[in-house]
């Protein structure tokens, strides 16, 4: 029983080795460093998938382990993206404005530069002043802190209100979805200060580092995403392997009983909700420079529902399951919607995968729910020969002792 942390969790080493091998493969195949058999846009897609795997990990912790079906984690992800996007856009526009003003006979004052940036950024929504929320956009460290702190605080306040009132189950899901929708609708407004439905764009250009090629930038961001995923995985694996993991799984199974053991269920939920919101925001910070653009549609409730679908397909309550689910579904999704899958002529109609992929995903989700509730990760159990004893039916309760329904009939 005194085995080390890694010895008790062999999946960590397997996961890290697989991730390292994958990173090495992509690095060697990239256009920036290697043999150029993976295009830059593919590197970006893969890097984005790693970020999505990280959000899926967060979702697995909060849903798979603690039983809180949050439909708001993609909102935290997108808010993190918006926060880093503000700096990227500000700093990039600043470079352009300074270059443009350098031609004028008089050196530009800071006020002129600031005005120039504001006009550039907000001209599209008919404004020319910085809204107050852009106060820190000039500073990368401050904006990075905000990128994690704003979603964290949002989750803390929202979670405090919801958990304190003991909102659970489907009601909590609806509440989180309402929060996501409200946030998304707010951001769609032009006067929200974040350019309405235009969102923030041009994020793929990293300011302040000269003019490296997109191939190089995409590879750096890919590495950063891989590193974040690795750290996130180890952190969460450590977190769920100890007594805290025990307590949160107990909360999922019977929260009232956990209260009578003396644990304040609400503070645990709040802790997890906030922690995973911050992790999701971190994933968003790495995702959007690779995506290049963010707009309010990114935090529509459907995004968070997809997140839940990935985790369900991959297998709840196991960290590698979440990663497998997110990677598998997003890879398939980009394959099917990329237009590279041949259409199937059916005579009376043509099956276009771009349109029908969602239907296929829906069937896949239903099939997993019905036939493999453990998800794809459950296959690992099969390989290891683990199987829950099939005792046929629910326990009968006190009077018939340890017999289960079916056993008692005979």
């Amino acid at each position, binding site marked *: 029983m005194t085995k080390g942390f890694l010895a008790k969790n062999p999946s960590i080493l397997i996961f890290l080795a697989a991730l390292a091998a994958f990173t090495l493969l992509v690095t060697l195949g990239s256009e920036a460093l290697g043999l150029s058999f993976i295009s830059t846009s593919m590197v970006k897609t893969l890097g984005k998938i790693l970020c999505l795997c990280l959000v899926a990990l967060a979702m697995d912790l909060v849903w798979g382990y603690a039983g809180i079906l949050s439909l708001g984690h993609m909102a935290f992800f997108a808010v993190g993206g918006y926060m880093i996007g503000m700096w990227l856009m500000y700093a990039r526009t600043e470079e352009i404005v300074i270059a443009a003003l350098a031609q004028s006979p008089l050196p530009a004052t800071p006020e002129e530069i600031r005005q120039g940036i504001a006009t550039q950024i907000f001209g599209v929504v008919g404004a020319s002043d910085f809204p107050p929320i852009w106060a820190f956009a000039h500073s990368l460290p401050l904006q990075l802190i905000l990128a994690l702190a704003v979603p964290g605080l949002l989750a803390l306040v929202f979670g405090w209100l919801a958990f304190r009132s003991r909102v659970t189950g489907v009601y909590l899901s609806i509440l989180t979805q309402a929060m996501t929708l409200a946030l998304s609708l707010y951001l769609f407004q032009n006067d929200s200060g974040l350019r309405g439905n235009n969102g923030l764009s041009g994020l793929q250009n990293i300011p302040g580092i000269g003019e490296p090629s997109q191939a190089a930038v995409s590879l750096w961001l890919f590495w950063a995403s891989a590193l974040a995923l690795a750290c996130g995985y180890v952190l969460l694996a450590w977190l769920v392997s100890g*007594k805290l993991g*025990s307590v949160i799984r107990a909360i999922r199974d019977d929260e009232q009983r956990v209260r009578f*053991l003396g*644990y304040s269920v609400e503070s645990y939920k709040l802790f997890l909700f906030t922690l995973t919101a911050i992790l999701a925001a971190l994933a968003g910070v790495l995702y959007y420079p690779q995506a290049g653009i963010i707009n309010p549609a990114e935090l529509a409730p459907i995004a968070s529902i997809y997140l839940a679908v990935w985790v369900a397909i991959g297998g709840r309550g196991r960290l590698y399951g979440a990663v497998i689910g997110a990677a598998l579904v997003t890879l398939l999704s980009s394959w099917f919607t990329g237009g590279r899958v041949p259409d199937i002529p059916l005579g009376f109609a043509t099956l276009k995968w771009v349109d029908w992929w969602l239907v296929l995903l829906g069937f896949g989700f239903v099939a997993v729910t019905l036939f493999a509730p453990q998800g794809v990760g459950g296959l690992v159990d099969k390989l290891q020969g683990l199987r829950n004893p099939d005792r046929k039916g629910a*326990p009968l309760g*006190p009077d018939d*002792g340890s017999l289960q329904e079916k056993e008692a009939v005979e």
Partner: protein
Amino acid sequence: MSALLEVSGVSVTFDGFRAINNLSFSIGAAELRAIIGPNGAGKTTFMDIVTGKTRPDTGTVRFGERPISLLALSEAQIARAGVGRKFQRPTVFEDQSVADNLTMALKAARGPFKVLFWKETAADRARVAALAAEVGLADQLTRKSGELSHGQKQWLEIGMLLAQEPRLLLVDEPAAGMTLAEREHTTALLVEMAKTRAVVVVEHDMEFVRRLNCKVTVLHEGAVLAEGSLDHVTKNPQVIEVYLGR
């Protein structure tokens, strides 16, 4: 003897139905007490009130030497103050091993950050092993508790209660679903526990109550109908009418 738990004048109404009606009850620091009563007499509601699950409309619930009011505390705070509860159906965390269940219940800091950085010491392991041995699960430590038989789950839950080191134990039908030998073991354990702490046992089974050999409180329609030794209360004509004589 000063009382450890003092419930006085408590009433609670659910949708117009008076589940507890001006109930008063007290128990000493090291006492065994059985509560009996017909279905709907308010036994479970009484436990809910003491453990903070249900808030009474009126009345006071005081606990400890320097009495604190339990009414202002949450369930978790009451549990930390030293009130343990065992449910009628065994509620253990079936997905986790026997050792994990016991470790979770072990008396220790309960805050999320303290728990996150908690490290199991040799003393903790020894304590878990000793508790498992005490409830006859010494060789089941690594099994998932969902695989245990009904009786074993009851035992595990009693072990978890012991691990919490409560000063007051509320036990709901501990012997339900147990074999005769298991019942005897349970009786011995309850009597032993009551030497150092207060134990309240809610039970239907008269034979079991007789074996406990302790003071009995009879509840009826949310109030105390009679109190005393089992022989004393079973002679009470009112008790016979509402409960025993049916």
